[in-house]
C-alpha cells in the first residue's frame, strides 16, 4: 500500500484517474462474479463435498453438474426448434396450420404404419409396461421420431420447413456439445501440457502444493495425509521400477513381451465374447419381441424381459469386463501409473464399443432385405415400418435401464453393506469393509449414459429432458451414497489432471456418437411411413433439396465451398498453421532450457553477464 501511495504522487492527474477507475471497475466485476456464483446450481453442496472429501471427488460432482446443464440446453434447443412448432401447428394455435405432402414415387406398401396404440379397455400394468419399453401409448407421442410427420408448418404467412429444422437442430446440438467440451478442456489441456513437459517437477509439486487448504474436517485431514503418503510412495516405487526396467536383460525382455502379447490376445478374446453376446442378444430380442399377446400378464412380463435383454447384457458386460482387465493387468508388469491408464482406456473402449455393437446389430436387422418388395423400400418394412422410432425406443430402454441399475445398486448393495459393516463385527465382513467411491468407474458410467443420450436424441427428441432429470436425481443419490455408505478412494486422483481426463473421455464418446448418427442420416434410407423425411431418400437428402431452392448465386458459392478446389487448399493451409505452432512450441522449449542454464551460471559467475 505504501508503494502505491508513493507512486501516486509522481503520476499525472490523468493517470491517477485511470488507476482509480480501473480499481473500482475491478471491484465491481468481483462483486458481479460473487453474485453470479450464488446462482450456480448446487454451489453449496459441491463446496461441502470438497471440504469433506477433497478436490478429486468434487471434480466428479462438478462434471455431473456440467452434464445436467448441457442436457438441459440441448433439450431447449430441440424443443424450441422441433417439438414446439409441431405441437403448435398440429393444434392450430396462433393461426397456424401444417401441410402433409403425400410421398411420390414410393411403393404403397412401404408407407403402411399402424402403431398399435391402446384401444378399448386396458389393464393398468399395460401403461407401466409401455412406459418402460416405449411402445404402446408412448410410441405416438412427441417422444419419438414417428410423431413429426409434418412437412411444412405455416404460421400466418411464414413457412417453417420442419424436416430441415429437424436435421439442422441435430447438427446444432452436436456442434454445441463439441464446442462446449473443447472450451472446458482447453484450460486443463494447457496445464496438462506444462505438467507433462516438466515431468521432473512432479515431486516438488506434490510436496509444496500437495496439501489442500480447503479441508476443514479432521477425518478428511487424516485421509489426505494417508493419500499423500500413498502418492509419494507410489511415485518413488515407480522410479525404482523405471530403473529396474532399464536394467533388464534381453532374455527377460523377450519373456515379458511375449507375455504381454499373450495377455492382449486374451483381452481381445474377452472383448469379442462381449460383442458377440450383445449381437446375439439384440437379434434374439428383436425377433421375439414382436410376438406378443396383449392381455396376458405372464407373456407380457416375459416380453418385457426379452425387450430389455440387450440392456441387461450390456450392463453385465460393462460390469464384468473391467474386473477381468484389472486382474489381467497385474501379470503384465507395467509401472503403476501406466497400469491405471491402460486399464482405464480398456474400460472406456468396452463401454463405448458395446453401444456401437448394439447399434450395428440393430442395423443389420433393419437393412436385411431378402425380397424384392423389401429392396424397393430399402429397409425391412414388415418388421420395421418406422425404424427410427424403433431405434429411439432401444435408446430409451437403455437409458431407463441404466437409471434403474444405478438406483438399485445404491439401494440394494450399498446400504445393506453399510448396515452389515457397522453392526456385524466378524472378521471377513470387516475385512471387506465399505465400498470405495471409485471416481473413474462412476465417471465412465455417466459418460456411457451421455453417449446414449447423444445418439438417441436424433431418434427421440425429448430424450435430453429425460437425461437432465436422470442426472439431477443421480446427483442426490450419489451424494447420499457417498456421505453415508462409501469411503473415499485410497488412490488419489489429482484434480487438475482428472478434469482434463473426464473431458477427453467425454469427447471420445461424442466423436463415437457421430459415427452411428452419420450412418443413419446419410446412408440408411429413411422410413417412408413416418417422420419428417418421408419424401426424401435419406435424411441428409433434405439439405441438397433446400440448396436447390436457393438463388443461383448462393448455390454457386455453396457448391464452390464443397468442391475439391476449395477443400484441398484449405486443408493444406490448416496443416501449415499447425506446423507453425509446433515449431513455435519447440523453439520456446529450447529457450527455456537455455535460460535455466544461464540462471545456474549467473550464480557462480555474475560478472560474466555484465
Amino acid at each position, binding site marked *: 500500500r505504501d508503494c502505491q501511495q508513493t507512486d501516486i504522487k509522481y503520476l499525472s492527474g490523468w493517470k491517477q484517474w485511470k488507476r482509480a477507475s480501473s480499481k473500482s471497475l475491478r471491484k465491481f466485476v*468481483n462483486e458481479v462474479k460473487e453474485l453470479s456464483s450464488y446462482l450456480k446450481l448446487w454451489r453449496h453442496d459441491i463446496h461441502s463435498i470438497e471440504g469433506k472429501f477433497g478436490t478429486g471427488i468434487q471434480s466428479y460432482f462438478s462434471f455431473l453438474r456440467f452434464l445436467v446443464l448441457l442436457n438441459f440446453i440441448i433439450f431447449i434447443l430441440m424443443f424450441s426448434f422441433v417439438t414446439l412448432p409441431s405441437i403448435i401447428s398440429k393444434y392450430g394455435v396462433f393461426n397456424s396450420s401444417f401441410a402433409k405432402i403425400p410421398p411420390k414415387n414410393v411403393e404403397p406398401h412401404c408407407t403402411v404404419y399402424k402403431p398399435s396404440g391402446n384401444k378399448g379397455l386396458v389393464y393398468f400394468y399395460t401403461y407401466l409396461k409401455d412406459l418402460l419399453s416405449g411402445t404402446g401409448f408412448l410410441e405416438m407421442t412427441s417422444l419419438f421420431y414417428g410423431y413429426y410427420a409434418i412437412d411444412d408448418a405455416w404460421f400466418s404467412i411464414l413457412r417453417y420447413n420442419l424436416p430441415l429444422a429437424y436435421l439442422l437442430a441435430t447438427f446444432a446440438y452436436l456442434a454445441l456439445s463439441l464446442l462446449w467440451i473443447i472450451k472446458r478442456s482447453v484450460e486443463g489441456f494447457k*496445464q496438462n501440457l*506444462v*505438467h507433462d513437459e*516438466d515431468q*521432473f*517437477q512432479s*515431486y*516438488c*509439486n506434490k*510436496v*509444496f*502444493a*500437495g*496439501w489442500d*487448504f480447503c*479441508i*476443514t*474436517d*479432521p477425518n*478428511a*485431514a*487424516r485421509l489426505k*495425509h*494417508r493419500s*499423500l*503418503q500413498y502418492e*509419494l*510412495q507410489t511415485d*518413488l516405487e515407480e*522410479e525404482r521400477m523405471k530403473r529396474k526396467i532399464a536394467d533388464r536383460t534381453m532374455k527377460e525382455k523377450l519373456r515379458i513381451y511375449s507375455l504381454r502379447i499373450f495377455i492382449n490376445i486374451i483381452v481381445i478374446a474377452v472383448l469379442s465374447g462381449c460383442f458377440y453376446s450383445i449381437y446375439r442378444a439384440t437379434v434374439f430380442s428383436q425377433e421375439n419381441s414382436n410376438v406378443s399377446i396383449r392381455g396376458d400378464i405372464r407373456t407380457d412380463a416375459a416380453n418385457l424381459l426379452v425387450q430389455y435383454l440387450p440392456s441387461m447384457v450390456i450392463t453385465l458386460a460393462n460390469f464384468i469386463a473391467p474386473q477381468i482387465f484389472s486382474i489381467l493387468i497385474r501379470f503384465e508388469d507395467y509401472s503403476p501409473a501406466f497400469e491405471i491408464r491402460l486399464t482405464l482406456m480398456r474400460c472406456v473402449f468396452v463401454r463405448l464399443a458395446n453401444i456401437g455393437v448394439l447399434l450395428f446389430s440393430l442395423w443389420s436387422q433393419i437393412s436385411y432385405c431378402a425380397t424384392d418388395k423389401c429392396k424397393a423400400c430399402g429397409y425391412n418394412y414388415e418388421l420395421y415400418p418406422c425404424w427410427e422410432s424403433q431405434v429411439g425406443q432401444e435408446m430409451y430402454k437403455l437409458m431407463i435401464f441404466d437409471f434403474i441399475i444405478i438406483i438399485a445398486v445404491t439401494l440394494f448393495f450399498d446400504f445393506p453393506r453399510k448396515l452389515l459393516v457397522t453392526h456385524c463385527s466378524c472378521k471377513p465382513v470387516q475385512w471387506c469393509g465399505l465400498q470405495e467411491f471409485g471416481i473413474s468407474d462412476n465417471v465412465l458410467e455417466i459418460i456411457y449414459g451421455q453417449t446414449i443420450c447423444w445418439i438417441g436424441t436424433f431418434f427421440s427428441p425429448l430424450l435430453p429432458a429425460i437425461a437432465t432429470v436422470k442426472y439431477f436425481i443421480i446427483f442426490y443419490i450419489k451424494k447420499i451414497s457417498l456421505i453415508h455408505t462409501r469411503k473415499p478412494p485410497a488412490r488419489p486422483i*489429482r*484434480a*487438475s489432471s482428472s478434469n482434463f481426463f473426464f473431458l477427453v473421455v467425454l469427447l471420445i464418446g461424442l466423436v463415437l456418437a457421430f459415427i452411428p448418427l452419420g450412418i443413419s442420416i446419410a446412408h440408411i434410407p429413411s422410413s417412408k411411413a413416418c417422420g419428417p423425411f418421408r419424401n426424401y431418400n435419406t435424411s441428409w437428402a433434405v439439405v441438397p433439396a433446400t440448396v436447390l431452392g436457393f438463388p443461383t448465386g448462393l448455390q454457386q458459392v455453396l457448391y464452390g465451398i464443397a468442391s475439391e478446389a476449395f477443400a484441398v487448399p484449405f486443408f493444406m493451409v490448416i496443416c501449415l498453421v499447425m506446423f507453425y505452432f509446433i515449431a513455435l512450441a519447440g523453439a520456446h522449449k529450447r529457450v527455456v532450457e537455455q535460460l*535455466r542454464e544461464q*540462471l*545456474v551460471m549467473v*550464480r*557462480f559467475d555474475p560478472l560474466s553477464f555484465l
Partner: protein
Amino acid sequence: AYKRFSELLPKEERDNACSARVPKGRILALPELRANPFQHRICHVFSTSESGDGSLSFEDFLDMLSVFSDSATSDIKSHYAFRIFDFDDDGTLDRKDLEQLVNCLTGHGEESRLSPAEMEQLIQNILEEADIDKDGTINLSEFQHVVSRSPDF
C-alpha cells in the same frame, strides 16, 4: 472478518478488539486451521508479537486472511509459503526443513512416516528438481520458480 476475529476474544476484551491480541490456542481452534498440519508454522509466521508466543492481533489476522484469499498474487503466496515451510527460520530450505515438511504432510504417528531410504530418495529428487545452483538448499527465488510451474498451488 472483524466479526470472526472478535468472536475469538473473551467477552471482556471485545470492545477493545482492534488492539487486543488473541492467544495461539484460540486461533488454532478455527475450523480452517484445525485440520491443517502447518497450523503452528502459520501462527508463528503471521504473528508480530515480540514475546514469540504466536498470538495474533487484528492486523496479523487480516494479513493472514489476505494472503490465503483467492485474489492474492502468486508472488505473495509463494513468499509466505516459503516462510511457513522454513522450519528453522534460516532463510533457506535445507534437508532438515524438507524432512520435517514431508513428515508433516504424511501425518503424525509412526506408521505413517516414510522409511529412511524413501525419505532420502524423495529429498534427493526434490533437490534435483528445484535446486538450480546445486548448493544443497532451496532459497526463495528457486522456491518461487518451482511453485510458479505448479498447477496445483
